[in-house]
Every structure is written in C-alpha cells, then in structure tokens.
C-alpha cells in the first residue's frame, strides 16, 4: 500500500540530528542507543539529556526534565512527565547505570 514501516533508532548520528533539530540550541555530545532500536538518549554539551523514541515511522524527542527513571540491570525505563507519553524501555547494556545517574 505504500505505508512506511515502524521506525527504529539504530544510528547514533541520526539520534543526535533528531535531538538537535527538535531542541534549538541543543548540541549533542554523547549518545546511547537502545540495543533493540527502541530509543536513544542524547546528552547535550549544556547538560541536558534528550530522549529520542520512534512514533510510527517518525520520531518524538523530549528534553528529560523531571522524568520518571527506573533501572533494572541493563534496561533503563524512562517516562517524561507528560500525558500519553509512553514509557520507553532502553536496553543500554553496561552504560545503563551511568546514564541513570545522569538523569
């Protein structure tokens, strides 16, 4: 039918570009991709951290202020304080602990 497939985020460059496009003035400095393509965390050089997650075949970006964050092993669960924003489970491997401390 010509419909696009659901998006995955498995390219650090793309994650950084999406965050920079969505948040004017944001300069990506460090990026962590979920191993299953479910999302990415992008740290800016101003200390902000952005969540990038797929929505259909596109993406949604949020600067994480006051987000609920929970870690279970290598998986970080993040939910921005916003109605209907789904929880994002990010499998960050061994980097999960370090990113949890940044949030």
């Amino acid at each position: 039918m010509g419909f696009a497939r659901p998006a995955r985020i498995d390219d650090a460059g793309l994650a950084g570009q999406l965050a920079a496009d969505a948040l004017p003035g944001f300069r990506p400095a460090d990026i962590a991709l979920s191993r299953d393509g479910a999302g990415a965390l992008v740290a800016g050089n101003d200390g902000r951290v952005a969540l990038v997650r797929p929505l259909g075949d596109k993406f949604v970006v949020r600067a994480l202020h006051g987000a609920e964050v929970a870690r279970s092993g290598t998986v970080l669960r993040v939910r921005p304080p916003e109605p209907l924003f789904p929880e994002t489970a990010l499998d960050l491997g061994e980097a999960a602990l370090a990113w949890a401390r940044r949030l």
Partner: protein
Amino acid sequence: MSFPDPVAIAIPAFVALIIVELVAVRLGWRGDYDWRDTGTSLAMGLGNTIAGAALGGVVAAMAALVWEHRLLSIPVSWWSFLLCFVLDDLAYYVFHRSAHRVRWFWASHVIHHSSQHYNLSTALRQTWTGFFSLGFIFRMPLFFIGFPPELVFFCAGLNLVYQFWIHTEVIDRLPRWFEALMNTPSHHRVHHGTNPRYLDRNYAGVFIIWDRMFGTFEPERADDPPRYGIIRQLPTFNPLWVAFHEWIGIARDLARARSLKQLWLAIAGPPGAVSGETSDAVKARWQAGSAVMPAE
C-alpha cells in the same frame, strides 16, 4: 439563489486523489504515508464533518443576523462572486495568522499541524472545536459589508477545496507565474515546516500574494527541507488527545496562573508563551546558534 456545497461534491475526489498519491509514493515519488498517522487524520476529518453538521446551522444563523444589519446590498453576480472570493481569502489569511499567534485559536488549529507527515490525508486532519474557538468570526465582516451568506459560504467551500491538493510532496515546483500568485504545494510545505526559518510563514489559503504583501512569505529551500509537525511533536496517534491536548494545556496553565498577565498569556498569548517555547523564541535561539556556529 442557492449554491452547492463544494466540499461535499469534492469528497469522492479527495478519496481518489489520496489513493493516487499512495500509489505514486509506492512507485517512488517523493512523500510518505504511515497507516496510523493517516488513520488519525481520517478520524479527525470525520469528527470535523460531524461537528460542522451539528453546529453549522448556528454559524449560518449568526451570519444571517449580521447580514440583516449590512452596510450594502450586494447582488449575486459574477463580479460579486469574484470580489467575495478574493475578500474571503483575505479573511482566511487574517484568521490563519491569528490561529498561529493566539493560543485560543491555535488550540483548534494545532490539530491540522499535528502530523509529522505531509500528504493529502494531512489536509483532512481538521479540528473538532472550530466553533468553540470562534474561528468563524473572521468571516463576519463579509456579511456586514453585505455579501449574501450563501455566496460567502460557497466561496469558503471553494477555498477549502483548493487547499486540499497543496498538501503533497509529490508536486515539487509549478511554473514561476503560478508560484508568484497562488498558494502551492511548495509554499504550503513551508507553512507546515517546524524548521525555525519556516515557523509562522505562508499563511495563505488560495493567493500567496497576502504573504508577500504583509511580510510573512518564505520560499522553500532545497538546503533546508521542511520537517513537518509542531515544535513539540505529539507522542501519540490517539485522536482524542490530538483533538483536545492544547485545550487541556490551556486549562492546566489557567489553573497554575498566579497573575492576570499569566491568565492572559495562557489564553491569548502566542502558543508556547507559558512554557517559553514560542516560535519567536525558537527562531531567536536558532539565529543565535547560527551566528556562533563555525562554518562546516
């Protein structure tokens, strides 16, 4: 004299053209569709039609009331039709500009911009709360001048039908004379763009001349392709959230307001005034960033 409803007549053509565009995209033409996004757009279009059927009579009654106190008695003729069409398009420009600069009007209009896609189904993504936000008042001067309500509604329908086909990426640029005079897919892609340079630009309905006259025109650039949607993209395809999220935001900000100024900004300020994410602020940060960024 009675006039047909141009939108009702055009609906089969809308459906057929969406299918044609889908096939074109499938064959490799520029553009893309996501079934969830298109489904939401169609749901919004259906809700808009229902709301219009339910409340259109009230708007017609108000138009008739204003027309009874008209300044002039303008007959229905070819010249009054042309004049009405042009003035109705000017009224649309004023409405549309207000809909992007005043949060009360934006709360209804944001629905149309809430898709990250730009295809013909996006044209059908329309508000359910247009009556509540009072968008119809922008056409009232036409009735007061003396244009018969049925003529104005006919012109408004034609205006809406015209705007359908410009919601596409399949068409790149049209002949220069046409791009100079008329609203086109290229001009309207800019209007739906969230790129800082494109924010609050190209409000035209049919004639792009209004933007050129009033300083709001911005051409599409090959080196800055539009990224569609809104500054803070919605995190869901839920039609109810699409329809009401900004109204809920207004209610939340009113509840938190601690001064008359905050109350005013929550209702009548520019969208994003309370959070600090106005289009002007985004542009300013972008321009500041461009000024200090080294050339790459």
